[in-house]
C-alpha cells in the first residue's frame, strides 16, 4: 500500500513540476516566471518528503528545510534584481531586457 502511495506522490510532484516549467517558458512577466520557479521548488519538496517517508528516516525532510531556506534567500535577491531592472527599463517583461548593454 505504501508503494502505491509513493508513486501517487511522485506523479503529483512530476505534474506540478511540469506545470512550473510550462509557466516559466510561456509567461513573459518576470514576477510570474519567478512564481513558477517557486512552484517547481515545491514540487521537488513534495517528492523529497515522499521519499523520506518511504525510506523511514528524516533526511529528506531536512533537505526540504534547506530548500526552503534557499528559496527564501533566492526570493529576496531575485525580487531585488527585478526591482533594479524595473528602475532601469521601467518594465518587467522578460523580452524587454534582451540586450546586454544599451
Amino acid at each position, binding site marked *: 500500500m*505504501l508503494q502505491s*502511495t509513493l508513486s*501517487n*506522490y511522485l506523479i*503529483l510532484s512530476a*505534474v*506540478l513540476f511540469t*506545470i*512550473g516549467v*510550462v*509557466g516559466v517558458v*510561456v*509567461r513573459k*512577466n518576470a*514576477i*510570474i516566471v*519567478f*512564481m*513558477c520557479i*517557486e*512552484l517547481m521548488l*515545491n514540487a521537488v*519538496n*513534495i517528492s523529497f*518528503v*515522499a521519499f*523520506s*517517508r518511504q*525510506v*523511514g*528516516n*528524516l*533526511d529528506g*525532510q*531536512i533537505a*526540504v*528545510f*534547506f530548500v*526552503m*531556506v*534557499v*528559496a*527564501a*534567500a*533566492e*526570493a*529576496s*535577491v531575485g*525580487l*531585488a*534584481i*527585478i*526591482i*533594479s531592472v*524595473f528602475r532601469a527599463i521601467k518594465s*518587467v517583461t522578460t523580452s524587454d531586457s534582451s540586450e546586454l548593454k544599451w
Partner: protein
Amino acid sequence: MSFVFTILAISAVLSAIGVITSRTPVYSALWLVLNLFLVASLYAVMDAHFLAASQIIVYAGAIMVLVLFVIMLLGLVGVAPKFSPFVTVVSLVAGVGFVAVLTPLFIEFARSSNEIGVTGDVKSVGRLLFTTYLYPFEAASFLIIGAIVGAFALAKKRRT
C-alpha cells in the same frame, strides 16, 4: 487516506494551473498562496508536521507577502477586480465545505497516524538539524545574511 490525498492533489494541480494562466500577477500570487497551503496540507498528511508549519510560515507567509509587496510597489496591479456577490458566496461556501470535509479526516488521521516510520515532529527534526546537519544549518544562516545584504545592495536607490 487516499481520498484526502486525491482531493489535495487535484486541488494543488488546479491551483498550479491557475498560477500560470492568470491574467494579472496578483491573481497568480493568490493562486500560488492557495497552492502553498495545499502543499503544506500534503506535508501534514505525510507526517511532516514541522515542514507543514514552516511551509506556511516561510513560503506562504513571508515569500508570497514579499512577492505581493513587490507587485504593489512596482504598480503592476493590472485590472481592478469588480466586487461580485456571486463570487463571494461561492468562495465562502467552498471554503467552509473544504474545512468541513477535511477536519474529521485530519482528526481521524492524527489519531491513527505513526503506523510506519518516523514522524517529522519538531523534536526529531530539531535533533537532526543540530547534530548531523549542524554544518549546513550554520552555512544556511550565512546564506540568509548574504541574501539580506545582497537584496539591500541591489534595491537601494542610487544617489546619481
